[in-house]
């Protein structure tokens, strides 16, 4: 319905553009000032009053028919600067008026100046354009006196600039139309709002006046009833009195008659009767005759109490107490670990001075009174509640209040604080060239929804690396794909419905080579692992006190320890620093390799064993208790180990002289871990996180 004015503008063909603009201006009461004067005299005050919305109403319904009528009212309003007082600024009004004048004026000017002369071409072909006169002329005329001093340009150029001008103006006009449309829709909104506001006010009045009338009716009823009852009571009393009065009168008359009769009797009888009569008379006279009127005819002073009505009347113009606000459900990602942002809304016709927000932590089972409950007063329809416990649910409800009173409480809404940041187990971070395995502790007692891993590549110092995120991780570990030979800073966040936690402390990962630490849980009791997790030491002093009991996790026979290699297929390379005279075994084994067996003594491990029986060094490459017969003339001080899942190979190298020692072909149906064993006191030092040497790439 409200789109009609716009529709009309759009619908009409181009030739009517000017008219349209006119109409548009009419529609919004924006007429030229000169017309205003004529109409102004007709304006009267009541009209101004209705002008705030009446033109709009009519425009919606019968735009064309009522055009004139409301136009003048619009003008009147404009004239008195009232028109937009309620729903638009004066400046805006002024702008529109000028805009109209501009488009209107220019458009007609263009038609007159440029279009019409073209049609006149038939008469005499004009070939130049006189800028001064703004008219095309023939070149010949230039020499004539009229245009002699004038500036002339070629007609084609003039035509072009004129066309440009037209296009520009058309563009402006289009812009204008769009603006107008926007303005119309804005007005529409204002209209609806005004309508609604007044509607509500009407309802409010109706409600209140009905209330007063009802109160008055009730009062009337009760007063009348009281009056009737009183009347009945009094009349009854009077009647009773009247009856008893009559009875007394009868008794008196009878006594009179009796006395008279006695007077006519014999003396003896008289005396006898007179004595009796005298007693009777005395008795009668002693009974006091009630001659007081029990009920007064006059009405008591009726005091009518209208104070409550007055109060009701008074309340019509004051605001009602607000209704219960509506508390919003928690917005996603709006919480922090210690705060939530609670939002609610009021009914738009309520006037609220402040809100009381109450809060109580939700606890399973016992929703007792012992739960700390606290309340805060806020002016806004939101509140950031701070100092809360992370990853915890809180129940919130809110009341609104103003001078008239306090609203009922809203529904309860449960909000949740974001979790505490997780704690990355930096000692368990392992990596290779393509990936890193990050493990962390939740940092929260209650479960969280998921975790996010954020990684920033520190490609060059100073360069602000882009942060990538891996989201929706359900567990406390994630294998993150990375680029080779880079450095990354890694953070973890925990998430729940309230939002993400703060970042964890960072962990740094270098994707150069494979990086792992020795896993102390697999460590034979006689071995100790250094703080950095890269050195295994079998102490001289320790005198073995028998073999430890069998275990599934740590080695019990061979004095060995496993490294935690990242479970990624591909190539892994590490080096072990050894003493030439140390008996050691290095290699790989499946995680479930029997821990009470020697390394290489089964199908689940592959390793190189060195034993030194002076003067000979013996090197064995053991798998399933078997070794090839291999003699090595130079004892390695550093052994390189290449684990190649893709080619199912495990190779050993003498690092210092780039010598290939041996390559196993092994079926690696699951992930293996590096393992290290010391058959004699001494130590093994692991070097990892290093690039693979080139000579190794041949195997």
């Amino acid at each position, binding site marked *: 319905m409200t789109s009609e004015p716009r529709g009309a503008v759009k619908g009409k063909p181009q030739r009517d553009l000017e008219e349209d603009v006119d109409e548009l201006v009419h529609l919004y009461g924006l007429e030229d000032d000169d017309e205003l004067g004529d109409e102004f005299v007709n304006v009267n005050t009541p009209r101004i009053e209705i002008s705030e919305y009446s033109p709009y109403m009519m425009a919606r319904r019968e735009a064309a028919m009522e055009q004139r009528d409301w136009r003048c009212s619009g003008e009147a309003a404009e004239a008195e600067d009232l028109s937009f007082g309620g729903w638009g600024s004066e400046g805006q009004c002024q702008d529109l008026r000028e805009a109209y004048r501009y488009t209107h004026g220019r458009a007609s000017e263009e038609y007159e100046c440029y279009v019409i002369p073209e049609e006149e071409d038939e008469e005499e072909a004009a070939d130049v354009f006189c800028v001064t006169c703004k008219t095309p002329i023939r070149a010949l005329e230039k020499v004539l006196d009229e245009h002699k001093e004038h500036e002339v340009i070629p007609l084609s150029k003039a035509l072009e600039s004129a066309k440009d001008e037209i296009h520009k103006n058309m563009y402006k006009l289009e812009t204008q139309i769009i603006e107008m449309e926007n303005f119309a829709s804005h007005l529409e909104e204002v209209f609806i709002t005004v309508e609604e506001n007044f509607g509500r006010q009407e309802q409010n009045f109706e409600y209140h006046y009905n209330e007063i009338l009802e109160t008055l009716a009730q009062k009337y009823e009760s007063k009348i009833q009281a009056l009737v009852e009183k009347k009945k009571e009094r009349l009854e009393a009077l009647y009773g009195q009247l009856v008893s009065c009559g009875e007394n009168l009868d008794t008196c008359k009878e006594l009179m008659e009796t006395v008279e009769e006695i007077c006519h009797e014999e003396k003896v009888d008289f005396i006898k009767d007179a004595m009796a009569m005298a007693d009777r008379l005395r008795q009668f006279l002693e009974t006091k005759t009630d001659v007081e009127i029990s009920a007064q005819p006059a009405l008591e002073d009726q005091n009518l109490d209208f104070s409550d009505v007055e109060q009701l009347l008074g309340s019509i113009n004051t605001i009602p107490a607000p209704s219960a606000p509506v508390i919003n459900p928690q917005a996603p990602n709006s919480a922090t670990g210690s705060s939530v942002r609670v939002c609610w809304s009021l009914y738009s016709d309520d006037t609220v001075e402040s809100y009381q927000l109450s809060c109580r932590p939700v606890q399973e089972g016992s929703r007792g009174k012992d739960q700390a409950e606290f309340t805060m007063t806020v002016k806004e329809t939101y509140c950031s509640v701070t100092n809360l416990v992370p990853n915890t649910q809180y129940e919130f409800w809110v009341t609104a209040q103003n001078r008239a009173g306090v609203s009922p409480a809203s529904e309860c809404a449960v909000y949740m604080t974001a979790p505490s940041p997780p704690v990355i187990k930096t000692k368990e971070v392992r990596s290779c060239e393509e990936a890193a395995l990050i493990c962390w502790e939740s940092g929260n007692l209650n479960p969280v929804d998921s975790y996010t891993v954020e990684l920033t590549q520190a490609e060059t110092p100073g360069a602000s690396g882009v942060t990538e995120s891996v989201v929706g991780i359900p567990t406390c570990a994630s294998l993150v794909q990375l680029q080779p030979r880079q450095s990354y800073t890694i953070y973890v966040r925990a998430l729940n419905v309230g939002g993400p936690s703060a970042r964890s402390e960072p962990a740094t990962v270098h994707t150069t080579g494979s990086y792992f630490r020795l896993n102390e849980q697999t460590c034979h009791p006689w071995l100790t692992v250094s703080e950095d997790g890269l050195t295994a030491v079998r102490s001289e002093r320790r005198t073995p006190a028998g073999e430890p009991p069998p275990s599934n996790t740590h080695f019990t026979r061979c004095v060995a320890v496993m490294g935690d290699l990242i479970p990624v297929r591909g190539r892994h390379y590490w080096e072990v620093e050894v003493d030439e005279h140390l008996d050691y075994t290095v290699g790989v084994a499946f995680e479930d390799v029997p821990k009470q067996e020697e390394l290489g003594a089964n199908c689940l491990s592959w390793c190189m064993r060195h034993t030194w029986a002076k003067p000979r060094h013996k090197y064995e490459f053991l798998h399933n208790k078997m070794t090839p017969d291999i*003699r090595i003339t130079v004892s390695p001080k550093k052994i390189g180990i290449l684990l190649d899942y893709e080619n199912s190979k495990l190779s050993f190298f003498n690092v210092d002289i780039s010598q*290939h020692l041996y390559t196993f072909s092994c079926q690696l149906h699951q992930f293996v871990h590096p393992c290290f064993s010391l058959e004699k006191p001494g130590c093994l030092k692991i070097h990892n996180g290093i690039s693979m040497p080139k000579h190794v790439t*041949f195997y």
Partner: protein
Amino acid sequence: MALKQISSNKCFGGLQKVFEHDSVELNCKMKFAIYLPPKAETEKCPALYWLSGLSCTEQNFITKSGYHQAASEHGLVVIAADTSPRGCNIKGEDENWDFGTGAGFYVDATENPWRTNYRMYSYVTEELPQLINANFPVDPQRMSISGHSMGGHGALICALKNPGKYKSVSAFAPICNPVLCPWGKKAFSGYLGTDQSKWKAYDATYLVKAYPGSQLDILIDQGKDDNFLSDGQLLPENFIAACTEKKIPVVFRLQEGYDHSYYFIATFITDHIRHHAKYLNA
């Protein structure tokens, strides 16, 4: 030094060729085989020289060892030389399979009548490489050497006598200490005379003891069921002991169940090609 192509066969993308030429050192017509990998079409490749064992020609290795695929993949030019001068009409040259024709032992003979033609050491270390460098797309700076049995001995002494000349060396069942084995004694006394001190100059075990210590990685494969091993012709233990003492890097693999044949070579040739490629392509 005109080269005459005897044959050319495409193999693993490259070409296995055989040439004949007039050898200055040996004073006779000699054949050699050369494999040109596909990479040699566009660039100079490193060269691996193969020295065959007793009674062999350039044919044995190229027809039996199956080295082509590995050489093709690693881009190695492989040259297989003959084992002695041919057709020199020296009296008695064809009487023994372990002396004379097919048994040059890679020494420069000093005794008559062998001294004119039997200069195999100079041939394989000087003349042949120059010929190859001049006629084929090889990088003179990158060469290695390998061989089998007597050729293994040849490979070891060539490398040990010329520190730095070869990037790497490997051998299959080499005669490691010819001075002490029947084959060696027979050959050396025939070619070098009775002065055993001269023999040591062509004995790998002795050469190791005097080796100045340039980086050299030696790979040796030896079949455990090799009759010549048990006959005491090869004596690898002596060589290993010497290398251990002198800290010359050797990986010696005693391969269970293998004998002295080309089946054994074919089994492990890929490892050897890779061993050389590691140094030649480093």
